[in-house]
């Protein structure tokens, strides 16, 4: 199991799709947006522009990190028969499944940390050590529902559908979740939708912590609901593929 996990991780850091979209793109967008909108304006929740955007891009990068290491990858492994081959080794199916989940969560960390580092280096974003720790830990835990959603897609979608489907979901969650432009400038109906999305809730956790507000009941509630839903979906999708059928 540890060997399996180690190899999955090693493979992830070589994956160009992961490196470019999950790591390089949020950093690039961060620099672009702070350049376009100016580093001194204020955005959501009264946070300085560089901080607000940092949190948004941490959420954005983490989201693709967990999506790219689950949905398209699992669908492809099913299609080429690696999943079947692995099932005739002593690796327990539950261990293989949790290995996928851990890999996804681990892949989110560098994507998140590098955006934070970029913010510190380019715009001298300053938070207390406790805030940094709480921000990264809370947002990291917050992407768990998204990782489970990725697993569900991986076990349900066909190989040729999984990548575009994941990509579409990623853009939709990013745009509608207020990671590109703040929810506050959107029409009220869109704001309601946005606040119900896990992408917005993950960012909300970070914004609140960066703004010194500890209490974030709405985001926690939304993420818990998504966690229950996506865990159920992932489990059902996995069982659908792994009981009494060979696929």
């Amino acid at each position: 199991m540890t060997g399996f996990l180690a190899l999955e991780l090693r493979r992830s850091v070589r994956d160009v799709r992961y490196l470019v979209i999950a790591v390089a793109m949020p950093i690039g967008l961060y620099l672009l947006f702070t350049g376009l909108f100016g580093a001194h304006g204020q955005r959501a929740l009264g946070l300085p522009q560089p901080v607000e955007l940092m949190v948004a891009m941490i959420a954005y990068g983490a989201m693709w990190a967990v999506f790219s290491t689950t949905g398209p990858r699992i669908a492809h492994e099913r299609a080429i028969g690696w999943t079947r081959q692995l099932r005739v080794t002593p690796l327990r199916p539950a261990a293989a499944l949790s290995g996928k989940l851990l890999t996804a969560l681990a892949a989110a960390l560098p994507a998140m940390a590098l955006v934070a580092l970029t913010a510190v280096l380019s715009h001298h974003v300053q938070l207390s050590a406790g805030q940094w720790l709480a921000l990264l830990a809370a947002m990291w835990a917050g992407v768990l529902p998204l990782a489970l959603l990725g697993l569900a897609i991986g076990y349900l979608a066909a190989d040729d559908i999984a990548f575009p489907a994941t990509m579409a979901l990623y853009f939709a969650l990013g745009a509608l979740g207020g990671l590109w432009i703040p929810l506050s400038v959107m029409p009220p109906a869109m704001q309601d939708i946005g606040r119900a999305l896990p992408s917005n809730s993950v960012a909300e956790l970070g914004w609140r912590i960066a703004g010194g507000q500890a209490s974030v009941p709405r985001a926690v509630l939304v993420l818990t609901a998504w966690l229950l839903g996506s865990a159920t979906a992932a489990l059902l999708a996995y069982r659908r593929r792994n009981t009494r059928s060979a696929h």
Partner: protein
Amino acid sequence: MASARTDPIPTSQPEPEAARQAGGEQPAIRAAGLAKSYGPTVALAGLDLHVAAGETVALLGPNGAGKTTTIGLLVGLLHPDRGQVRVYGRPPSQAVAGGLVGAMLQDAGLMPGVRVGELLAMVRGLYPRPLPPGELVALADLGPVLGRRADRLSGGQAQRVRFAVAIAGDPRLLLLDEPTAAMDVQARRNFWAQIHRYTARGRTVLFATHYLQEADDAADRVVVIAGGRKVADGTPAAIKARFGDQQVRFTLLQGSPALLAALDGVRAVDRDGPRVTLRSSDTDATVAALVRSGLGWSGLEVGGGDLETSFLRLLAETS
């Protein structure tokens, strides 16, 4: 999570070394009355299969005979509708979890995005008593490709890596589902040489094939299945005599057709006008007898017996 590795596997853990040594006592495969249907399609209709430890057995049959379903049941990927199967006395999934079984499945692939050497190291790590790395690389002839990406290999290289993945854990039972289907003659010969090196270590092999010649070359025993049932079980020589009819064809120019059935080796005579097809168990003897017979003939052809035809004939006889 970490428990996946440290959890004792109840059925494999208490296995004493003595029992392992005496593995010859325990049959590698014991299956009785296996039945499996996919909706209205019957894949297996009550298959009995017994394979002793150390045997190399061919599971021979035409496409759709139930070979792949049988292999799927033996590794626990499928569950029988009826009947029971034990691998070294255990349910298949437990035998797989205990590292007793390795398999080369049809259309099973390799982990993408990693090097061959990394992949094999990971797979070895999943087994309690894997083959030493050097031995594995030598057995599967993989030296030159260890540094290559597993998803960027030629067909033949990928097949060798898939074989290596199957034997990495040094399984006591190796299952191969039409392992040479996509190989040319030379690759096929090399592959069987590798299998022989592996079985020389006292391992048990069951392989599915639809080539009678392959079953004859590689197996100690041949189990023939058709229509989801066992229709024959015996030595390659016995199976070949029963299924391996060759054909001698020619146009009869002069002489009595009644003489044809008496030629050496002839088991059946088919006539289509002057064109004659003799089914023969020994085409050399049949042709020699034809030459001596004084019959007039032209357009002689000697051809391989068609296994599908043999099966159809056999099924017609048994039903």
